[in-house]
C-alpha cells in the first residue's frame, strides 16, 4: 500500500497538472485535474494517515478553497480593468504559448476542487481514525 502510494502520488499530482493545462485543447480541465490531485492526497492519507497527508499538503484545504475562489474571481474581474466585460477572455501569445485569463480561472477551479475534496475527506477520516493508520512519516 505505502509503496504504491509513494509511487502513485507524485505521478498523479503531475498528471493532474497535465490535465489542468491541456484542458483547453484536449480532454481535461481544472475540475478533473483538481479531482485527480484531491484523490492523490486522499490516497496518501489512506497510506500514511491524515496528519502526514496534511503535512504534505503544506497548507490547509480551507486555504486552498479560499485561494482558489480568489484566483477565479480575480481572473473574472481582470478584464474589467481594461474596460472589457466581466469574465471576458484575455490572451497573451508569446512564441506559440498562449496564456489567458480563462487558464487562470481554471487554476482557481483546480485549487478549489482540491480544497473541497480534501476538507471533506480529512474531516470524515478524522472522525473515524480507526480506518486509516495514523503514523508519522518517519
Amino acid at each position, binding site marked *: 500500500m505505502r509503496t504504491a502510494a509513494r509511487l502513485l502520488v507524485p505521478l498523479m499530482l503531475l498528471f493532474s497538472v497535465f490535465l489542468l493545462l491541456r484542458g483547453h485543447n484536449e480532454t481535461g480541465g481544472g475540475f478533473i485535474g483538481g479531482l485527480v490531485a484531491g*484523490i492523490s492526497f486522499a490516497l496518501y492519507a489512506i497510506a500514511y494517515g491524515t496528519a502526514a497527508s496534511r503535512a504534505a499538503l503544506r497548507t490547509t484545504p480551507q486555504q486552498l478553497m479560499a485561494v482558489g475562489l480568489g484566483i477565479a474571481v480575480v481572473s473574472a474581474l481582470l478584464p474589467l480593468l481594461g474596460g472589457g466585460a466581466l469574465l471576458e477572455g484575455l490572451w497573451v501569445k508569446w512564441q506559440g504559448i498562449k496564456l489567458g485569463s480563462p487558464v487562470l*480561472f481554471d487554476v482557481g477551479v483546480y485549487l478549489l476542487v482540491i480544497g473541497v475534496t480534501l476538507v471533506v475527506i480529512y474531516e470524515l477520516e478524522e472522525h473515524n481514525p480507526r480506518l486509516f493508520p495514523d503514523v508519522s512519516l518517519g
Partner: protein
Amino acid sequence: MGLLFVVFSGFLLALVAPWLTPHTGRAAGWLYGLLPASITGVLASFLGRIAAGGTVQQSYAWVPGLNVNLSFYLDGLSLLFALLISGIGTLIFVYAGGYLRGHHHLGRFFCYLSMFMAAMLGLVLADNLITFYIFFELTSFASFVLIGFNHDEAPSRRAAWQALLVTKAGGLALLVGFILMQQATGTFQISALLESGDLLREHRFYLPIVLLLLAGAFTKSAQFPFYFWLPNAMEAPTPVSAYLHSATMVKAGIYVLARFHPVLSGTDLWMWLVGGIGAATMALSAWLALQYTDMKAILAYTTIMALGLLTMLLGLGTEAAVEAALVYVLVHAFYKAALFMVAGAVDHGVHERDITRLGGLGARMPLTAVAAGIAALSMAGIPPFFGFVAKEIAYKAALQFDPAALAVAGVSVLANVALVATAGLLILRPFLGGQNEVTEAAHRPAAGLWFGPVVLAVLSVGLGLAPWLLDHALLGPSASAVLGTAVEPHLALWHGLTPELGLSGLTVAAGVATYLSWTALHTSAPFQQFERWLGTGLDHGYDHVVDGLLAVGRWQTRLLQNGVLRRYLSTVLVATIGLVAGAFYHYGFFGGPIAVGEVTAYEWILSLLAAGGAVGTLFFRERISLITSLGVSGFSIALLFLTFGAPDLAKTQFLIETLTVILVVLILTGVSQVEGSLTPAQKVTNGAVAVGTGAVVSGLVLAVLKLPFENPMGEYYAQKTYVEGEGRNIVNTILVDFRALDTLGEITVLLAAGFGIYALLRLGTAPDPNAENDPPPEDASPQSEPIESSAPEQTPQQVS
C-alpha cells in the same frame, strides 16, 4: 453632476468617516456639517429654476436591460424635501458632534448618519421606481443601524429590529405596488408616470396599487396601527431621533403619499382611507402623548400626531389641504428637530428626561430655553410663530372639506388641544419653576448643542412673520407638483377675523385647560386604560405577531428540516416526480413511438451492468458489497459516456466514482454494522419513490429524443471555440470562458458546501448547545444517521 453630488457625497463620507474621525478631535460635527451644508447650497442653486416652473432631470444607465436607470428628478416637491434633509442634516451633524463628543464609536456614528442622509436624498430625488425602492430600503437599513447604535443594550436591539421589520414589510409591499404600477403604465420612470393619473385610476390594478403603496407609506410614516415602532425607536441616541423623526425617515412615507398624489388621489378610496387613517392616527397619538413623562416619549407621540395630520391633509387632497400639508412639513421639521435637540441637551446636562423631575433649567441654559420656548409655541400654533400659519391653513382646509367639514375640523381641534397642552408640558415643566437636586447639577451646554435649536427658532420666528417668502420659491412649485396643476399659494400671518381664527382661540383655551388639569388627567383610570390599549397594547400586539411568525417558522423547519437525510431525499425526489410528471401530462409527452438507433453489443452489456449494479444494492446486506455494487453501476455509466464521445464527462464520472467510494467507506465505517430492517410499509414507500424517480428521469430522456433535433448552440460553440475561446476542447471552453459566470457561481456554491460540511462535522463532535434544533424525538427510525451515531468520544485531530 449637481444631483449626483447631492446623492452620493453622503455615501463617500460614510466610507471615510470611520477613519477620519479619530483625527478630527472635537471639531468632527462642525467639519462633517460642511458636507450637508454644501449639499444645501447646491440644492439652493436650483431654487430659481424650480420656482420658474422648471424641473431638472439627470439619468444614468444602470440596468438598461430592465429599464432600471439611476435617474434623478428635481421638482418643487423633491426640492422641498431635499432641502429639509440636507438643511436639518447640517444642524444634526453639528449637534451630534457635540452630543456624542468623545464617544468611542463617533466615526461609526457619522458613517451611519451620512449613509442615512444620502439614502434619504436619493429617495426624494429618484426618478425611477426601482431606484426609489432601493433608496427606500437603504433608509430602513440605515435607520436600523442608527436606532440600534447602542447595540449592547437589549431595548435598543429590539427597537432597531422592530423598526426594521415594520418598515421592511412596508417596503416589500411598496415594491409590489411599484411593479404593478409599471405593469399598468408601462414605465418605471416617475416623471413619466405622473402624466398617467387617469390611466391608473381607471386601471383594474388601481385598488391593489393604492393598498400596497399605502402599506409602504403607513408603516414608514408610523400611521395607525403601525405607529408602535416609533416611540420604541427613541432608544436611539438623541441626534438620531431628532433627525429621523423630524425631517427624514418618517417623512419618507409622507413623501410617497405626496409624490404619487397626482396619479392616485381623487378617488373616494384614497380620500377616506388616507384621510381616515391620518385623522385617527392624529387624534389618538396627540392624546397618547399626554400619558408620558419622558420628554423623548412625548416628542415621539407628537411626531406621530404630526404625521397623522400630514396624512389626513394629503387624503383630503384639496388645494388648501395640500398647501397646509407642505407648510406643515416645514413647520414640523423646524420645531420637532429643535425640541428633540433640546431634550437631548437637557439629558446631556442633567442625565434626566422626566418632566416631573425637571424644573428651573431656564436659568442654567437660557439660550436653549428660549429656543425650546419658540419651538414649543410654534408647535402649539401660537402667533406669530410659523406653526400658527400652518395651523390656520390646516383649519381652513378642514372647514372647506365638503363631505365632512365638521368632522375633520372637530378631529383637528381635538388633536391640537392636546398638542397645546403637550407644548406646555415640554417647556414650562423643565425650564420654569424652581431648581431641584437634579437640575442644580446642570452645566451650560456646548455650542454644538444649542446651535441647532437656535437656528431653527430663528427660522420659526422669521417664517412666521414673513411666510410669503415661501410662496413663490418653494410652496408654489411643490404644491403644484403634488396637485398636478399649477397653483399660486399666498401665505399670511394675519387673515382677518376668520372662522379658523375662532377655532385657534378655542384650541388654545382648551389646551391651556388641559395643561392645567394634566396631573389629574394622566393618572386617571380611563386615560391609563387608553394608553394600555393603544400605546403599549399595539407594541404587545407586535410581539404576538412576531412570536406567531417564529412559531410557524419552527413548525415548518421541523417539518422540512427534520434532520433525517432520508426524508430530505424523499422530499426532493417526490417533488421532482410530481413536477416532471405534471409537465409530461400538460405537454402530452406520454405515448407514441420513440425512434431508437441501433444498439451495439457492448452498449447492451454496459447498460445491463449499470442496471445490475443498481439492482444488486437491493439484495446485498454487507456494506462493502453495497459500495462495490454501486461502483459497478457508476463505472459502467462512465464507460457508456466514453462510447458516446463524451470523454470529459466520462473522466469526471470516473473520478467522482472513485471519490464516492472513498467517502462512502469513510462514512460507513463510522457507523455500527447493525443494519436494522425496514417495515413493509417503508419498503413499499421507498420502492415507489425509487421506481417513480427512475420512470420520470427515463421519460425525460426519451422525451428529449422526441423533440426535433436542432442544435444551433452546438454549431455556435463548435465554430467559436477556437476563434474566440482560444481552445479546441469545447467542453472546457464553455466551462471557463463562454459560460464562466455559471462556473463561478458553481464553484462558489462548492466552497460554501465545503465549509458547510466542515462545520457540520466539527459541530458533530461537540455537544449540541441548541438542543431545540434537534430532530423531533418521535422519529425513532430503526436506521440511525451515520454522522449522529459516529462515536463522539473519539477526539478528532486538530488541523495543524
